[in-house]
């Protein structure tokens, strides 16, 4: 009996320890020792920017290997930066905040026209095409839109007023088929920043807009977000030169040369280059200059878009 009572008393004695976690041993820290944050960039940084047709994350994922490669090959302190919008990208080129610009041809002709940027290379698409085009899409269950003429009077969402594949090429295609901007019930642009190509597909898929215009290849990007079979491609625009690398005006030509040389080294057949190119979603780069983009300049003039706007 006495042992039994002792056990009970012992258990009662254990009560205060209930809830204590003996495994945690705190580390002493002194919060009073403080410093001010100071993030100074080194002065010789070469900034590299990818026109934010997609989100920053996608931009990073596509180009950070390439940036590393260029840094490694050129020995330059190349750093990728992420403008929030196409306009922001254009302005940053003008402000010399972007040294190397990777943009669509429409933006290129703008920054070339406005700020004297010089094209030095362009990419070859994954299907080994040196050009690309835009697509006009609608929902697959939209029985009212089957041809380009059915787009008349419909609401249209485009990627951006500065987008080539997502707006300019499609607008040129509409004009070519006798459909003016004023013939649509509504023309909207996808909200930014970033992810604007995907935003167009998602907006059409959601049924908010009747038609949308995107760069060819965007449907593959959103394949993990929606069932792309639910999207119907009404028409494809003619091919135009693909995306272009341009240097800002005033950038040291030696630097441009180094970078161009490194870029042209990238060979899809080489193991060490293949993953870089796959990430960047093209198979190689070729040399280019401003003349390659005359067709784009002509298209802008055709649809009535001023390169100064």
């Amino acid at each position, binding site marked *: 009996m006495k042992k039994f009572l002792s056990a009970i008393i012992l258990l009662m004695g254990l*009560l205060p320890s*209930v*809830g204590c976690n003996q495994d945690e041993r705190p580390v002493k820290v002194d919060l*009073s020792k403080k410093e001010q944050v100071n993030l100074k960039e080194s002065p010789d940084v070469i900034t590299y920017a990818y026109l934010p047709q997609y989100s920053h994350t996608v931009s990073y*994922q596509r180009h950070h290997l390439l940036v590393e490669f260029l840094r490694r090959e050129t020995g330059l302190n190349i750093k990728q*930066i992420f403008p929030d919008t196409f306009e922001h990208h254009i302005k940053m080129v003008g402000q010399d905040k972007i040294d190397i610009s990777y943009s669509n041809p429409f933006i290129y002709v703008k920054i070339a026209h406005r700020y004297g940027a010089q094209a030095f290379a362009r990419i070859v698409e994954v299907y080994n095409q040196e050009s690309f085009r835009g697509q006009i899409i609608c929902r697959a269950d939209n029985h009212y839109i089957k041809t380009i003429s059915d787009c008349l009077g419909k609401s249209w969402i485009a990627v951006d007023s500065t987008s080539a594949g997502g707006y300019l090429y499609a607008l040129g295609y509409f004009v070519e088929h006798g459909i003016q901007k004023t013939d649509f019930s509504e023309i909207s642009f996808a909200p930014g920043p970033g992810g604007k190509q995907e935003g167009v597909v998602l907006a059409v898929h959601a049924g908010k807009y009747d038609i949308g215009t995107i760069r060819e290849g965007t449907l593959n990007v959103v394949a993990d977000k929606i069932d792309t079979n639910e999207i119907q491609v009404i028409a494809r625009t003619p091919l135009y030169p693909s995306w272009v690398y341009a240097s800002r005006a005033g950038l040291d030509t030696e630097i441009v040369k180094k970078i161009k040389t490194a870029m042209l080294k990238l060979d899809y057949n080489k193991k060490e280059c293949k993953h870089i190119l796959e990430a960047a979603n093209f198979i190689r780069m070729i040399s280019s200059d401003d003349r390659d983009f005359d067709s784009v300049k002509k298209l802008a003039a055709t649809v009535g878009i001023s390169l100064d706007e």
Partner: protein
Amino acid sequence: MKLGFRSKIYLGMFSLLLLLGFMTLFLVSRIMSESLLEENRNRGISIGVNLAALMVEPMLAMDFLRMKTFIDQTVQLSDDIFYTFVLNADKNPLVHTFKGGFPIDLKTVNSVSDRQKFSIRLLDTGDQLIYDYAVPIFIGNDRIGTIRLGLLRTKVRKAINRIVLSAFLSTGFVILIAGFLGAFFARTVTRRIKILHESTEQALRGNLDIHTAPLLDKNCWDIMKCDKQECPAYENLHHRCWYTAGTLCPTCVEGEYAKKITSCQKCLVYRKCAGDEIQSFAESFDTMTQSLKAHILEQQNAEKILKNQRELLQTILDVIPDFVSLQDSQFVYKSVNKAFCKIIGKSEDKIIGKTNFDLFTQKQAETYQQEDLEIFKMSKPLIKESKLVGPKETKWLHVVKIPVLEADGKVGGILCSGRDITELKQVQELLSQSQKMEAVGQLTAGIAHEINTPLGIILGYAQLLLEDATADGQVYQDLTMIEKQTKICRKIVSDLLRFSRHTESVIALLDINQLIEETIPVVEHTFKLDRITIIRYYGSDLPSVKGDKDKFKQVFINLLGNAHDAIGTAGTIHIKTDYDKKNNEVIIYVGDTGSGIAPGEIDRLFDPFYTTKPVGKGTGLGLSVTFGIIDDHGGRIKVESPPSITSNVFDKVQSTVFIIRFPAVHH
């Protein structure tokens, strides 16, 4: 200190509840604390991971405003989030929520590798404890920075303490409720056990009229709607029908509990009325006490009968003059009667359990032992006459020893029966003496007859010579003496002849006074020689009695002679006659002034051959013959010594009075 059953139950129950409560409290508190900590940890991780995902875009864009907005919003989510900050890939803070600068220690105090999803460290700032969460910021497989989050542990601890306190109070409340309920149920158990205990004590004290089981709300006659009043279970409130034999229910099996219980257990009454184990125990206890009571009564009756029979048997054994004893196979006395005790001279309790060696002399015991062994060996009874020589007297015993056979035919003991034949032996001796005396008497009668003639001749010649002798001369005196002594001799011879001769009785009406007056002169002369005077008190107008005159005379002579012998010399013999009208009897009183009779001798006075006289002086037949004659005549004789007041009819105090009564005959 010995605890009672109730105390033990309470203590055990309370201890168990306490133990259970503490165990539950411990486990619940532990689990809840762990859960809360885990939840808090997961919450921190969740916030960190979410923030890391949100930080990717602004970090890539180096959008400090968005980064700051995100971390400020995070801190505002809950007041237990102490701080948040973002480190870049070089582990330099990009944005933070501290005011007045970034605490340097926090940079390195908690780090998370690329392989880890998070890292948690408990930090002690001196004022409070903080859980620091480090979550890496990835783009794909590329690490671009780290999110750090600080959650106040104090908040968590307070929550845990609140839970523990709630659990403690809840457990205490539950223990209290369970304790009350347990005490209530325990009390119902212990109360019934106490009743059982009291009933047991009552039973031990001999009170078997106890009712331990509770009364039922509905009994078998209510349930079965039965009105068989002759059924033993009917209106038997204190006993259950399944324990009662001989119930009249149509579904009942005949017999007692063991036979009917299987059937009863299927009965509606049993299913409705049967209680728990304690109630069943109490009911069976009641039945058991009733059964015990009945058995005790039966046993008491049997014992009473047995006792009566034993007493009867003992009475028979004690009353019979024969002594009886029973010995077992070890020759130990197991039972004896009073006669045996008397023979042995010891009380029963000093004989039972003893052997012959304890009761008799060594020699006697050895003799008896040999006899007993022989009986055991031969299994045959022994009949013998045994002389028992005691310090005061010698006794003759007629003994029969009978072997007592057991069921298997073996001798298991000896029954010894015997009787005191000392008197018989004495009578046999006296009879032998009497036969001898009879022969002497016959011889004496013959001799007397033969000497009667010579005595007549001697007397005749003596009387003839007297006629011739001078009266004054010596010869005359001598002749007178010869005549006198010859007459005496002739009287003796005549008495002897009359005693020995069996003469026919001549019954006639007799005047007692006259008869006495005729008898006294026969002895008076002789008595005078011894200075013994006979005084007569004759009653007047006595009725006659019927009888043989000679035998009556012999009676008087015997009584007068007996008085003479009692007086010896110098004394008075009184004779008185009277008539008892009431009983119509003639009474003769013969008293003397002699030495009297000892009290122990009076009862044997009329026994044949009983005499107190010296050897040769008496035969012991005188009073016996007297008794016989009086009895033959329908009379009675009684002796009182000293005489009672009613019997002392004489002026002078007498020592002995013989009172003889004869039926009176009226003309």
